[in-house]
């Protein structure tokens, strides 16, 4: 196994913010979490198990460090991650 893969498996600390439906379901508006998830998608599956989020990842958008990203974006220590449930402006 390469050095890069080994470091991928170590827990890294990320910050999460929750809004709307997810905030109510998680019963918090933010948390600092140590995770072994390698991507945003893996992190969402981890959170789904813990908080029973009913919405599938396919209905969510993802933002990291205040920009939209794809769900397969690799997680890095210190990232601020927001899962965005379906929106309703106007």
């Amino acid at each position, binding site marked *: 196994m390469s050095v890069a893969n080994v470091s991928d498996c170590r827990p890294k600390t990320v910050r999460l*913010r929750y*809004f*709307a*439906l997810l*905030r109510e379901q998680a019963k918090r508006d933010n948390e600092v979490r140590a995770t072994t998830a390698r991507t945003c998608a893996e992190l969402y599956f981890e959170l789904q198990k813990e908080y029973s989020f009913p919405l599938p990842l396919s209905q969510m*958008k993802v*933002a990291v460090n*205040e*920009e*939209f990203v794809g769900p397969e974006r690799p997680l890095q220590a210190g990232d601020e991650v*927001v899962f*965005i*449930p*379906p*929106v*309703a*402006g*106007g």
Partner: protein
Amino acid sequence: MKICQFSLSAEPLSPVLLSRALSDTAAGAFVSFEGWVRNHNRGKTVVALEYEVYQALALKEGERIVAEAIAKFGLIGAGACHRYGLLGLGEIAVWVGATAPHRCQAFAGAAYIIDEIKHRLPIWKKEYYATGSTAWVHCSEHSH
């Protein structure tokens, strides 16, 4: 310098002030749109709305939407402002304004901005019903 403004407000919106910021003697047309808090949705009586917003990303995305409309339709200027927090019936939830040399561009630009806001802005709407219950709604669930 084209005017391209997007803002979020916890206070009631003032269409007079918002439209004044777009005044330009090169404009032959100004189109504005106001989204109002309606007393019903999907057969239920609505008594209030609450908007929750991811401010940092909403400001960026809102500015991108307004800039896209200016580039796409050759607008002279455009702006939009979205309320957040608790709103009563009849209040303005969102304001959009677009100026252009001619009306077609201004109509199209304003329509583009409100359509994109509904689908892309990270803002969520909770409806408060006369029955005492509440629900988060999203744009695919109700008619525009």
